[in-house]
């Protein structure tokens, strides 16, 4: 499914990247990883919560896009019903790996099997003189922001865990179709425990900007209602 190789300006000089949106580009997902540094933007459009990694049990941050596999309620043909699109979606088809190369910079990998990669349409990766295109420079910047964000998220989640601020959220949703479903495995900040923070712990959380991030997480859950409405509205056509 994926074929990740290091980006190489000789081998990949002719490649172009389609930057449109749509399910043909793998955007039809009901969850996407997010980073703490983009919560301020995400909170305006998406419900954001924590989930555990199945292999390690570690918490990670996610935006909810739908209620079941292959359901992205934000995606309407080639448009997202949102003013901001998560970094993990926008980075496609690139991945940055933390291993450092000789220049001390992160390696950029490209997924050659991605439907975005072709030689006919979209943004070129390299200029005719072999230098990086504006698009590639932007992408490198985006991946840099993402890598920084991943580290910040890990520190954020670790603090939430250490201060025991997380609690499971159970979603019982009755859809207009009559279908009732319980969603488990989602976690958020406990408003009660957050407001009970005192002294040094409160100061730490405030100084690192985590207090805001916690409030964003809590506020973002209001968007679940919107997703239910969207799902109800599209139900008859399916």
């Amino acid at each position, binding site marked *: 499914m994926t074929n990740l190789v290091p980006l190489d300006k000789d081998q990949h000089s002719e490649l172009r990247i389609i930057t449109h949106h749509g399910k043909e580009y793998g955007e039809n997902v009901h969850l996407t990883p997010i980073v703490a540094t983009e919560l301020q933007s995400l909170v305006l459009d998406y419900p954001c919560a924590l989930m*555990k*990694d*199945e*292999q*390690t*049990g*570690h*918490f990670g941050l996610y935006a909810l896009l739908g209620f079941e596999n292959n359901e992205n309620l934000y995606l309407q043909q080639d448009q997202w019903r949102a003013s901001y699109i998560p970094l993990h979606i926008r980075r496609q088809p690139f991945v940055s790996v933390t291993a450092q190369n000789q220049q001390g910079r992160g390696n950029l990998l490209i997924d050659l099997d991605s439907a975005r990669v072709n030689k006919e349409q979209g943004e070129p990766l390299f200029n005719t003189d072999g230098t990086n295109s504006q698009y590639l420079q932007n992408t490198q910047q985006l991946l840099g922001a993402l890598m920084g964000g991943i580290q910040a998220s890990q520190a954020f989640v670790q603090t939430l*865990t250490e201060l*025991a601020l*997380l*609690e*499971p959220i159970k979603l019982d949703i009755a859809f207009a179709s009559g279908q009732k479903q319980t969603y488990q*495995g989602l*976690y958020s900040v406990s408003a009660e425990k957050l407001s009970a923070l005192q002294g040094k712990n409160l100061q730490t959380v405030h100084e690192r900007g985590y207090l805001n991030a916690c409030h964003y997480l809590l506020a973002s859950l209001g968007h679940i209602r919107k997703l239910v409405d969207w799902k109800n509205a599209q139900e008859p056509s399916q």
Partner: protein
Amino acid sequence: MQQPIQSIVIVGGGTAGWLSAGVIAARLNATQEKPVKVTLIESPNIPIVGVGEGTWPTMRNTLKKMGVRETDFIRECHVSFKQGAKFARWHTGKTEDAYYHPLILPQGFNHINLAPHWQVQPRGTSFSQAVCPQDALCERSLAPKMITTPEYQGLANYAYHLDAGAFSNFLTRHCTETLGVQHILDEVVGIKTANNGDISALLTESGAELAADLFIDCTGFKSKLLGEHYQIPFKSCSDILFADTALAVHLPYQQPDTEIASHTISTAQSAGWIWDIGLASRRGVGHVFASRYTDRDSAYRELAEYAAQTGHKLDNLSVREIPITPGHREKFWHKNCVAVGLSAGFLEPLEASALVLVEISADFIASQLPANRAVMDTVARRFNRTFHYRWERIIDFLKLHYMLTVRDDNDFWIDNRDPVSIPDSLHELIELWRYHPPWDNDFDHATEVFPAASYQYVLYGMGFHTQAHPAGLSAQQKQLAKQAFAKNIEMTQKLASVLPGNRELINKIYRHGLATV
């Protein structure tokens, strides 16, 4: 007499002492404005017995209430998960003879008794297999939970196998660093008594006088306060339970990734049985036998043969001999002294009753701590009544494992069926169960150490037959039972497909830890 109880001194620093200290301190810190002061004095010279390595599921709640992180406990006490016990060769003694006593109640236990329905089924599926998924999970060495399951929660009910020595050290740190228990390393060399016969203070080797309002005797087999000082007689039950010696050994795993059994394995021998407890770090194996029916050399040989099955040479390992006297003190709480742990009594570890008795004793003391000396005698009487009942029920339950055997290869098994060796209370229950399958209201207390379900697992595992009721079973009951049996099959398949191996999960916990939520 109206002076409030303000200080407790616990004597002895084994698992019983530290577990009591932790349970009591955590409870009183949480409930009292001015918590009672808890001090534990332990001799720097006495090694702990440390053979209690199997727990009950109750230990999860006990540790949680003490504020212990399950991740820390698992990592530091070489813990593995226990989902029950497998009894091999207890019934007929043949190679294929085995049954499980799992920890999950039979399917739908709060609304239907499946035993009579199982008895009329075509043979082939054992009782525990028909009503509970844990046979299948144990046979596959699966864990009771996943890495994403929060601490102390499980997809299947579970207890622990733990390293008793490491557990004592772990509890010492938690009690002293987190719960404010004062720790004194000193020898108790004398006891000072008050006019009313109470212990007023302990005199120590270093010349200190340790006064307290209540003393908890956790001094092990020695029973220094209750036995030696107060001379409370020991009530032996060796006429019921014959085992009097244990040979214990630690077996290393052959490979670091050798699978860890998810249950205690108890394999009957010619005049006793061998326990096999898999920890994360090693196995603890021991032969409990009755020297009236076999000699030490034969018992050693049987243990050596057992160890040889996994390629271990017993002669190269250090084998500890532990004399055991089954029974308990006639009273547990006398004056201002209460015994918890081996100082109160001992029974062979057939159903891991040692630690659970410590937990419920400490819980009783913590939750019903006398407000003052005047009411202490009342609390003591109630404590003695409750724990007499508990010890008798445990003795009955252990005896049940022996009395239903059909083995006749050694007088040990034949004599175990002799009616004179069977307590009247157990006789009566067996008479009842010939015609009625065990149910919760067969017992006097609302909370029993062993619920009716445990009796069902052992009875039907041992081939016992309850006669079908002459009035038959209604169509509605049959339908409910059918659904419950089907649900059990479904649940078994589902759990077996998602649960990781015991070793795999423990490795992951070492690496990643479990979350508290």
